[in-house]
């Protein structure tokens, strides 16, 4: 029983971590009024960069930093297209997804003699037990013997909350997402805020992706990310564009996955096809949304390019 609970919690945390990080990224962008369908691509580029950098430097922390920088760099085209050129934000986000997957797989093939994946990363991030705490039964192994990215994710949730809801920067950022003109009349530079927000989303999604290739996994290939950026987006909406909401939604999703996996260990597949167990997380999410969560209030100006009055 204890083992099972430990299992469920550990898997929950494992699955939720990249979602949390990426959803926080999406949070910044979308709170500032810029839709970010490109999270998937930003994760991909983060996962790729982290893998390659770690392979070269043998230091996963440098890999993590590089993933963040790459995430920022790849958020630039999205920012330029959707903020400066006032392109449709969904379009530009979709283009980012194509671009990131295309470039990263192209480079992998180019760098590693046509291989579809990077070589094995020997210096990946390891679990980091917090002495003492990790001995607590059930929650210890899950929460206090986790990957550094997990601790980082939790930290970032709190920091995001502080930044968005307690600092002038965050207040302005949210104001820009709700009513950019109002923000502008108080002297806030709408473009600068939105740029900052989109670049932050690149940084966080980049770290989220890095976790997939150098913490949970130890290589990069074209299915390393496989839709998790979209799930992070869903978690962001599910969590009503709030840091703790998104944290909860990501955790909920991880928990649903954990339940399905544990079901297999218990031999449930003797009674239901294992495909049905695999569907479970997705169905549970839909049920949760339909049953309890309902309507979510998006930032009022989300998706609308801003046209300043002046030049």
């Amino acid at each position, binding site marked *: 029983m204890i083992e099972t609970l430990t299992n469920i919690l550990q898997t929950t945390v494992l699955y939720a971590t990249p979602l949390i990080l990426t959803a926080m990224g999406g949070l910044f962008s979308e709170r500032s009024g810029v839709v970010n369908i490109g999270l998937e691509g930003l994760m991909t580029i983060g996962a790729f960069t982290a893998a390659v950098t770690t392979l070269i430097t043998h230091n996963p922390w440098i890999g993590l930093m590089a993933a963040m920088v790459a995430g920022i760099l790849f958020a630039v085209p999205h920012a330029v297209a959707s903020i400066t050129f006032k392109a449709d934000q969904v379009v530009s986000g979709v283009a980012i997804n194509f671009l990131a997957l295309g470039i990263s797989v192209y480079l992998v093939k180019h760098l590693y003699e046509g291989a579809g994946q990077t070589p094995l990363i020997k210096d990946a991030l390891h679990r980091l037990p917090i002495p003492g705490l990790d001995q607590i039964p059930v929650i210890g192994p899950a929460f206090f013997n986790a990957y550094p990215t997990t601790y980082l994710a939790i930290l970032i949730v709190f920091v995001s909350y*502080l930044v968005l809801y*307690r*600092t*002038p920067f965050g*207040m*302005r950022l*949210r*104001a820009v997402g*709700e*009513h950019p*003109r*109002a*923000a*502008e*009349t*108080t*002297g*806030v530079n709408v473009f600068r805020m939105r740029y900052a927000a989109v670049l932050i989303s690149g940084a966080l999604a980049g770290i989220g992706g890095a976790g997939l290739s150098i913490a949970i996994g130890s290589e990069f290939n074209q299915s390393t990310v496989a839709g998790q950026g979209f799930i992070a987006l869903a978690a962001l909406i599910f969590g009503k564009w709030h840091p703790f909401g998104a944290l909860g939604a990501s955790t909920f999703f991880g928990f649903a996955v954990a339940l399905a996996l544990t079901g297999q260990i218990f031999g449930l597949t003797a009674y239901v096809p294992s495909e049905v167990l695999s569907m479970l997380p997705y169905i549970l999410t839909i049920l949760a949304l339909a049953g309890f969560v309902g309507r979510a*209030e998006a930032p*009022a100006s989300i998706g609308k390019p801003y046209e300043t*009055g*002046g*030049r």
Partner: protein
Amino acid sequence: MNVVEMKGITKRFPGIVANDSIDLTVKKGEIHALLGENGAGKSTLMNILFGLYQPDEGEIRINERKAEITGPTVAGELGIGMVHQHFMLVDPFTVTENIILGAEPTRRGLVDRAKAEREVQEISDRYGLQVDPRARIRDISVGMQQRVEILKTLYRGADILIFDEPTAVLGPQEIDELCEIMKNLVQEGKTIIFITHKLKEIMRICDAVTIIRRGKHIGTVQTAETNENRLASMMVGREVTFDVDKKKAESGETVLEVRNLYVSDSRNVDAVRGLNLEVRAGEIVGLAGVDGNGQSELLEAITGLKKARKGHIFLHGKEITNQKPRAVTRSGVGHIPEDRHRRGLVLDFSIGENMVLQTYNQKPFAKGLTLRYPKIYEYATKLIKEFDVRTPDVHTPARALSGGNQQKGIIAREVDRDPEFLIAAQPTRGLDVGAIEFIHRRLIEQRDKGKAVLLMSLELDEIRKLSDRIAIIYEGQIAGWVDPATATEEEIGLLMAGSQSGAEVTP
């Protein structure tokens, strides 16, 4: 001293010269009105002064010193604050958050809420602007929202305040309050530029008026040396009649009957509580009241946009309670909605398509499932001509039309369907006198044709001018009926404020 001097300001937008060499001089401590028709260029001129637009030509001097106002921040530094025509408030934020946005006091990098709230309270006390610093914008009344806008400028230490049509959204009570506030501000040494379409207000509180027409400066006069009629003709360029000539009503049978109606608002609180109302053929019933007393809910319940919780609505004796909007429309109800952008128009549709928003699937506009666009545009062209909707053509998106013309389009659509019962909610909000005159005439025309009209307006003048009977709504009930011919403004105002002699309360 001249605090503001704008000289030869020209501003061009693609296809139009919004400001054509306009001069404006404002003296310290005065309330200076800016008057002009819709689209005359008032907001543009003020946006230039506030740094939102850059003029193509011209010079600005603030406090007798040349100024280059490149953005709202610069304007702020020069002591210029603006209360915009459409509120610039962030809905989910609190009053305090809105006020301090962009100039937040901080402590160790975090917003210092306690200090901010204290400061807001202080300023609002000093100028007599009552607000609740912690309330969320979406939960407070329009009047309070406006006070927040004013506080925003004061918080930034503005000495020159621009008010762009602040009274368009206020009820009479709130307008009085605002006028008091403006007088207070001037006494405290502030200077005010005030845009309004209401001549009465200008005459009441302004010292000077600058009139612009089609982007051009027509003249500046002292209120003491002019009157409403002169101002109106300067503004429009011709004589304007203010009195609507109106025959005595010949009211007939009851068209609309509302009995013991209960409707809840979006927060599930009853906004209409046991309301009774009757509108007869050939009369205009004015529904007067302070905003938020259940007017919107009542109209939405009648038109089927909101469910009635209890009670009955009859049209020509036939029950229409809780019917679908389409059924209500088909049974002969026309509706000029309160919010033209939200409800009245599909802004991305052409004005032509908007003309058949309810009738697109009826003959002759559709044959079976197929739309017949030639017929639609033919019809729209006719309406546009008849109702003087100024638009390049029927294919122009409704979004591109000015507010007045959008409104005329809606009225054309609703009136031309020839409904037995017409609801007109705030039909002239934000429009200039020319357009108002036109719309008023149309409403009376309907009445004279024997139709029943229910007019909801926050403007008492409009109600008094047009109505044959006035119902005053207070807290979801009809607090009393008055005769516009005999009732005084005080009487009505008292009823609207909820204080009345018990006898007048409807049982």
